[in-house]
């Protein structure tokens, strides 16, 4: 029983930490710091997944944790750092909405997901419940980052933090088949390749990764 409660507390802390870091993302107004926060996000995710692997006695989850650590906490932030540097857009990110309303919306979303998930999962075991509630918060906050940013790089970061929330949910669901974990990691990889190509192309064509710069052409508006 002692072990049980330690397991619960640690995973609780880690999942809660993820939500907190997601909230931190909302008010980063420099691209570099946003990337750093994202790296931290991925690091905490990998810790959380590794802890789940340990307490569920599911060694395959270590693979997921490893991928999160190497790929998302190191490779992607470094690569994005370089892209940002090359493009010379490190100075600022203009968010579409101010920080105050964004933070309020973020808190609202966390409250919403807690209320929703805790209510509908009253029969499930407490660990899975809270994990799911936190995961939904991370997903929704990731969405919020995506909507409030105009810059392509920060939208990508928002999307990846959203994916982190999904991984958190998938690993929290005890015994979920391996297929899904690998596929999640794999599709993130594909997604990143796609994004990489896009960034590359966008830079090539316009010398800008500001999505609003792409907004001028529409069939109807002319």
């Amino acid at each position, binding site marked *: 029983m002692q072990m049980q409660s330690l397991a619960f507390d640690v995973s609780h802390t880690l999942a809660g930490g993820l939500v907190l870091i997601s909230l931190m993302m909302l008010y980063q107004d420099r691209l570099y710091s946003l990337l750093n926060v994202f790296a931290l996000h991925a690091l905490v995710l990998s810790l959380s997944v590794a802890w789940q692997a340990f307490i569920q006695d599911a060694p395959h989850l270590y693979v997921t944790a490893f991928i999160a650590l190497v790929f998302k906490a190191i490779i992607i932030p470094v690569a994005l750092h370089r892209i940002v540097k090359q493009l010379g857009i490190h100075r600022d990110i203009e968010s579409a909405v101010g920080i105050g309303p964004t933070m309020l919306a973020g808190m609202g979303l966390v409250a919403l997901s807690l209320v*929703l*998930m805790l*209510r*509908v*999962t*009253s*029969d*499930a075991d407490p660990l*899975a419940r809270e994990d*799911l509630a936190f*995961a*939904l918060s991370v*997903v929704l906050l990731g*969405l919020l980052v*995506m909507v409030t940013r105009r810059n*392509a790089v920060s*939208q990508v970061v928002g*999307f990846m933090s*959203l*994916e982190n*929330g*999904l991984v958190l*949910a*998938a690993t929290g*669901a*005890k*015994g*979920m*088949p391996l*297929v*899904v974990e690998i*596929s*999640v990691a*794999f*599709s993130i990889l*594909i*997604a990143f390749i*796609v*994004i990489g*190509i*896009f960034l590359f*192309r*966008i830079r090539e*064509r*316009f010398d800008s990764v500001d*999505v609003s710069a*792409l*907004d*001028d*052409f*529409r*069939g*109807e508006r*002319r």
Partner: protein
Amino acid sequence: MTLPFFDPVTAVLLIPISSAALLAALPGYRLTARLNVLASLATFLSALCLFVMERSPPGPYVLIDDLNIVFIVLNTFVGFTTSIFSASYIAHELETGRLTPTYLRFYHAMYQTMMFGMNLAFVSNNIGLMWVAVELATLTTVLMVGIYRTHAALEAAWKYFILGSVGIALALFGTILVYMAARPVMGEGQDGMVWTLLVERAANFDAALLNVAFVFLFLGYGTKVGLAPLHAWLPDAHAEGPTPISAVLSGLLLNVALYALLRFKILLAANPASIAPGPLMVTMGLVSLIFAAFMLYRRRDIKRLFAYSSIEHMGIIVFAFGMGGPLANFAGLLHMVMHSLTKSAIFYAVGHISQIKGTQRISRIRGLTVTHPALGWGLVVGVVAIAGLPPLGIFMSEFLVVSSTFARQPLLAIVLVFGLLLAFGALTLRLTSVAFGEPRGSTAPADASYIPMFAHLALVLGAGIYLPSPLVVWFQHVAQLLG
């Protein structure tokens, strides 16, 4: 019939993926375009074998039942005809230099990968695998939408990518929730994601969790179906990519997401304590229909016009499935098949037309029936079909949807008919200006492949006049399955 060395299920997956690898490696337009057609034909023929083969019991990953055979055959057939259209369309693009040979190689490889992804989504019995397959198909189409690398194409691809990813992420969350709901009953591990096993025991699942799961799945896959207000990616993606891709997007990819939704709808129907998915689907369907019908009036771009028409028709189909019951399901299924055939035929015509005229703006295209009779009249027949006029197939399916709704919910039927008439008005308005009147724009002769377009239209006409009874029996059976 069983052949020891030939398994159609493996074939519909293996042919596309191996030819994708081959097409990525081979140079030369003529060879690769032909190979693309050939591979698609082989896939289609293998899909036809699904009708006659002995079905093996559903495994942990693969399932073949009456429902998905309809989808697979439709998918591979339209994939095949589109590959023929694509061959002549791409030849023109190479001439004008919009595509380079390297991109062409990429294009063909992506085309087959997309077919693989869609077929995999249809045959998968594992809800996790199905999700992966849908995502794969989405990513390949994103790349193809952006292939022209113009401002507009990149914007469209980016928007499609972002919205598609969000949708697909929500769908994954829903999938995880389904597993969570099933876990107390199914136990941990593999079985908790196998659809056939889930349906068998769904009655004991945690209903509240299942409800939330369905909402996520509905929003997630609904984004990919193009339901308003989640449709924002759809018109751009249709308008800016190569036209063969618009044809498969409208005709096929929307169906894939719809298919995923239907699977989960069946799952929910098996649990008496959970919410009925019907009202949700009916509402979103009607909203999409009405919204798209109004938007049709304001289109200036011919591909966007038909993209909105796809939203409208997906709305009708989702509405029909949402109503449920044998008749409405039958109508929805028929409408889906008819819409796929008609819409892709229209895009074949539109593709050639916009190539000849060098523009997609409706105001610069006039008098097509005079200058290009085959294309012009093909388009006229296509639009008449899509607007729901007799004697073509869509009239029949729309009639079935409306009449079955009138019998049960007269008020909803009035809204439905209002939407249909609205869309009809918009389409006729645009059609008359494009097809008739004083010719405008280039009158260069068309180097078009007419066979795919007329084959589709002939099928739609045939279905409108007479549906063969084996087909009716099959559809009735599937409608029963859908509950």
